[in-house]
């Protein structure tokens, strides 16, 4: 190994979260290299060694993260999160399959590829139903379809958006929720913090505002979030859950979750807990290399 740091933190645009992560690593005296994914050049199909034994990816870009992680893993790096986890979390259809495979409850979901078949899928689900981009976040382009005519308009609109992913129609049963849903942070096998997101709007992403309140981590919420995190492969994850009439359902798992609004209400040092876990992986890796 060169004299490079054992840990790289890969970012693109820096959010508050990344600054807090850098501060947490610095407070722990950890040596790490900050890597901008805009400057990465990675050689594929070549048995070169990753410059860093451990790579913590905090980029905003799903595409960059997916490919960088695949290559760095093949070069021997331990990536947080792994390429498999990133590929599963970054694609809502892949996430649904992972939930189904592990028996994690989630709203009924249909996938269709044309406007006509998607309209039939809406009839099957019943109105209202929810349309989401398979790749997307922050509640962006998540739409509630209240009627056939609304569905027609929205589906037609998506179909002309350009990218092929927008013609993969991911349609979901609409779950009536009690004015709130949950965001739960899982680190390794542990639920470290949880919040309720209250909102007048049915889309409750904190990126869109709304009130945040601490939730219990030790009950069913924490257990369900840990199950969902395991289902997608585990790591440092942020799980979105909803309370349906018959119990909790998991909507999605985020691989680069935002937590700035969850620290104050929960009193949990979320970036600190994440940094401790990653540094634990670094210590393991370095020990393996020394004794290999």
């Amino acid at each position: 190994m060169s004299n490079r740091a054992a840990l790289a933190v890969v970012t693109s645009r820096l959010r508050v979260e990344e600054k807090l992560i850098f501060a947490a690593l610095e407070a722990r005296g950890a040596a790490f290299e900050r890597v901008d994914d805009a400057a990465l050049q990675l050689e594929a199909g070549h048995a070169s060694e990753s410059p860093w034994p451990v790579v913590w990816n905090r980029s905003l870009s799903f595409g960059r993260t997916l490919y960088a992680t695949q290559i760095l893993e093949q070069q021997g790096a331990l990536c947080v999160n792994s390429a498999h986890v990133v590929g599963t979390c970054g694609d809502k259809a892949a996430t649904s399959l992972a939930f189904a495979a592990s028996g994690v409850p989630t709203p009924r979901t249909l996938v269709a590829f044309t406007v006509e078949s998607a309209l039939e899928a809406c009839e099957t689900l019943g109105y209202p139903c929810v349309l989401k981009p398979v790749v997307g976040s922050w509640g962006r382009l998540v739409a509630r379809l209240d009627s056939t005519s609304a569905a027609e308009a929205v589906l037609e609109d998506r179909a002309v958006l350009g990218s092929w992913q927008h013609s993969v129609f991911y349609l979901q049963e609409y779950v009536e929720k009690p004015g709130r849903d949950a965001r739960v942070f899982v680190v390794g096998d542990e639920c470290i913090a949880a919040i309720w997101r209250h909102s007048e709007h049915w889309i409750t992403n904190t990126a869109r505002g709304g009130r945040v309140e601490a939730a219990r981590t030790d009950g069913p919420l924490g257990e369900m979030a840990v199950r969902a995190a395991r289902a997608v492969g585990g790591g440092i994850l942020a799980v979105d859950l909803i309370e349906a009439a018959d119990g909790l359902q998991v909507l999605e798992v985020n691989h680069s979750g935002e937590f700035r609004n969850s620290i104050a209400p929960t009193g949990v040092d979320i970036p600190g807990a994440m940094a401790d876990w990653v540094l634990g992986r670094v210590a393991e890796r370095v020990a393996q290399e020394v004794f290999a």
Partner: protein
Amino acid sequence: MTSISKPAALCPVCEASIDAPADSITGEILACADCGAELEITSLAPLTLEEAPDVAEDWGE
């Protein structure tokens, strides 16, 4: 991170003078108080600002 004194830079959109906070780091986004443009700090010494790229479709958490 590097903490060199950071003289003001000009907003590339409206040419307003912008001071970066003392704890700024490259890659961070600032909003221009005058025109509201989202600006990315591309270097700290000298302070250099560029219009931040629009949110790409695959961006998120």
